[in-house]
C-alpha cells in the first residue's frame, strides 16, 4: 500500500474519508514489541483482558436467570445449573474465569516488577494496573456472595467486619458495604449492584486508561537488554506488533480458552448449601484462594498484641504493605536517579514468597 491519500476511489476510499482508518493502520504498522528471553511475560496482560471479556459475556448470560434476593438467589443459581441448557457450563466458566483472571492479573503484575516495566515514565500505568487488580478483587468478593450459599455468606460477614474494625471510618464503611447493620438481603442487593453495574463501569474506564497509556508509551525493554545492545552500539531487537505479536497473542488466548474450557467442564463449580443466617459457621470454612494469605495471617495473630486488638494490627499491617507496594515505582529509584534494583527484586520475591506460603498454609491447615 502506498499511503492513505493514494487510495481515494471505491468503497475503501469512501470509508477512509469518513472514518480515517489508515491512521490506525499506520500506527499498527509501527508498533513493535521487544524480543528477549522474557518476551513470554508480555502475553499475560492480554490474557487477562481476554478473560475479562469472557466474564462480561458469561455474566450477561447469567443475568438472564439470576435473581438477587435472599429467597431466590440460591434457587435461581440452582435453576441455572440444573434446568437451563448449558447453564452449568456458563456458570462454571464464569467462576473459573474469575479465578484465572485474578491469577493472570497477578502474574502480569509480578512480570512488570521483575522486568522493571514500572520505571519512568510508566508510573501512572502501574497505578492504573493496581487499581484494576483491586477492581478484579472487588468483582471476586461481590460475585462470591451472589449464589447466597453458606460459605459465601460467612466470607462476606468476615470480609465486611474487617472493614468495620478500621479506626474512624470503619463502622460507616461496613454499613455502606452491607447496606445495613449486618449481612442480609440488603447486602445481596447491594453487592449485585456493585457486581453488575458499578464495577463493570469503573473497570471499563480504567481499562481504557491503562490501554491508552500502554499504546502511547510503547512496550518497555528490561534495562539489561537495553544495556547489552547499547554497549554493542545497536538497538534491542523488536518484532512488529502486527501481525507477529498479535498472532502469538491470539495463540495465547486460544491456550487460555483451552485451559478455561477444560477446567470448567471437568470440574464444574460447586454450589454448596443455601446460606442460613441462623446456623453456625461450618468447620473448614475459608475464602477464595486469593484471600487465603490474609485470612491465614488473621488466624495466626493473637487477640491482643501490646495495646492493639489483633485484627486491627493485622489490618494496619496489610494496609502498610499495600501502600508500600502501590508506591513501588516511586521508591524504586533514589534521589540521584539510581535504580534500587536489589530492593525491588527483594520486595517482589518476598511478597511472592509470603503469598505462596501463607496461601498454602491457609489451604491445608
Amino acid at each position, binding site marked *: 500500500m502506498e499511503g492513505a491519500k493514494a487510495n481515494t476511489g471505491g468503497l475503501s476510499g469512501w470509508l477512509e474519508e469518513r472514518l480515517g482508518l489508515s491512521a490506525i493502520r499506520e500506527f499498527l504498522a509501527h508498533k513493535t514489541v521487544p524480543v528477549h528471553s522474557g518476551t513470554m511475560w508480555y502475553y499475560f496482560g492480554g490474557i487477562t483482558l481476554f478473560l475479562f471479556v469472557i466474564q462480561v459475556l458469561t455474566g450477561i448470560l447469567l443475568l438472564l436467570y439470576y435473581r438477587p434476593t435472599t429467597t431466590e438467589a440460591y434457587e435461581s443459581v440452582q435453576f441455572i445449573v440444573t434446568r437451563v441448557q448449558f447453564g452449568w457450563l456458563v456458570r462454571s466458566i464464569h467462576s473459573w474465569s474469575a479465578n484465572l483472571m485474578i491469577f493472570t492479573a497477578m502474574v502480569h503484575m509480578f512480570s512488570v516488577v521483575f522486568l522493571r516495566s514500572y520505571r519512568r515514565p510508566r508510573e501512572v500505568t502501574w497505578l492504573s494496573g493496581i487499581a484494576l487488580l483491586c477492581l478484579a478483587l472487588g468483582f471476586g468478593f461481590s460475585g462470591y456472595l451472589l449464589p447466597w450459599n453458606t460459605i459465601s455468606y460467612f466470607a462476606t460477614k468476615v470480609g465486611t467486619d474487617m472493614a468495620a474494625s478500621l479506626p474512624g471510618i470503619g463502622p460507616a464503611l461496613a454499613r*455502606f458495604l*452491607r447496606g445495613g447493620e449486618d449481612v442480609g438481603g*440488603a447486602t445481596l442487593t447491594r453487592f449485585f449492584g456493585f457486581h453488575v453495574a458499578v464495577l463493570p463501569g469503573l473497570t471499563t474506564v480504567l481499562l481504557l486508561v491503562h490501554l491508552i497509556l500502554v499504546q502511547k508509551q510503547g512496550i518497555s525493554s528490561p534495562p539489561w537488554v537495553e544495556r547489552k545492545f547499547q554497549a554493542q552500539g545497536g538497538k534491542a531487537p523488536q518484532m512488529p506488533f502486527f501481525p507477529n505479536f498479535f498472532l502469538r497473542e491470539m495463540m495465547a488466548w486460544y491456550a487460555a480458552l483451552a485451559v478455561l474450557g477444560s477446567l470448567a467442564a471437568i470440574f464444574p463449580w460447586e454450589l454448596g448449601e443455601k446460606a442460613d443466617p441462623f*446456623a*453456625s459457621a461450618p468447620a473448614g470454612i475459608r475464602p477464595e484462594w486469593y484471600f487465603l494469605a490474609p485470612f491465614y495471617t488473621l*488466624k495466626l495473630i493473637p487477640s491482643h498484641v501490646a495495646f492493639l486488638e489483633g485484627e486491627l494490627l493485622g489490618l494496619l499491617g496489610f494496609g502498610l504493605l499495600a501502600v508500600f507496594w502501590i508506591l513501588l515505582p516511586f521508591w524504586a529509584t533514589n534521589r540521584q536517579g539510581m535504580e534500587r534494583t536489589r530492593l525491588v527484586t527483594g520486595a517482589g520475591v518476598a511478597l511472592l514468597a509470603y503469598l505462596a506460603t501463607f496461601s498454602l498454609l491457609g489451604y491445608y491447615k
Partner: protein
Amino acid sequence: MITERRNLIRTLLGGGFVASLAAFLYPVIRFMNPPSVSEASVNEVPGGKIQDLKPNSGKIVKFGNRPVLLVRVSETEWRAFSAVCTHLNCTVQYQEQRRQIWCACHNGFYDLNGNVVSGPPPKALDEYVARVRGDEVVISRRA
C-alpha cells in the same frame, strides 16, 4: 478592567460548576448510606422444649434478628450467649468434645462463661439468661 471582569466570570463559572457538582454528589452520597431500620425489640424468646436438647450440647436460637447459642451444660444447667463471634462476626457453635464454644472461621474458642480461651477473638461473648419454665427453656436479655 477587562481582566478583572474575566476573573469575575471565571470565578462565577468555576464556583457554579463546583456548586452544581456538590449539589449532585451530596444527595448521591446520602442515598448510598442505608437508612436504619428499627429492629423489632425482643426481650424474651422461647428456646424449645427441655427434652429436645441433650445435656452437653447446644443449638442456635433466633433472638429477634440475631442468633443466640443455647447450651445445655448438664441435666439442670442452661446457658445462653450471643452466637456472634467477637472477632469477625461469624456464628459460633458448641463443641461437645472440648465442652467449649468454637468459632470455625479463625479457630477461636470460648469457655462456658463466654470468655476467650484461645484464638483471635478479642472479647468475651455477651451472655443472655436461660431459664427453665415448665418444660420449656426461655432466653432473655440480661437486665
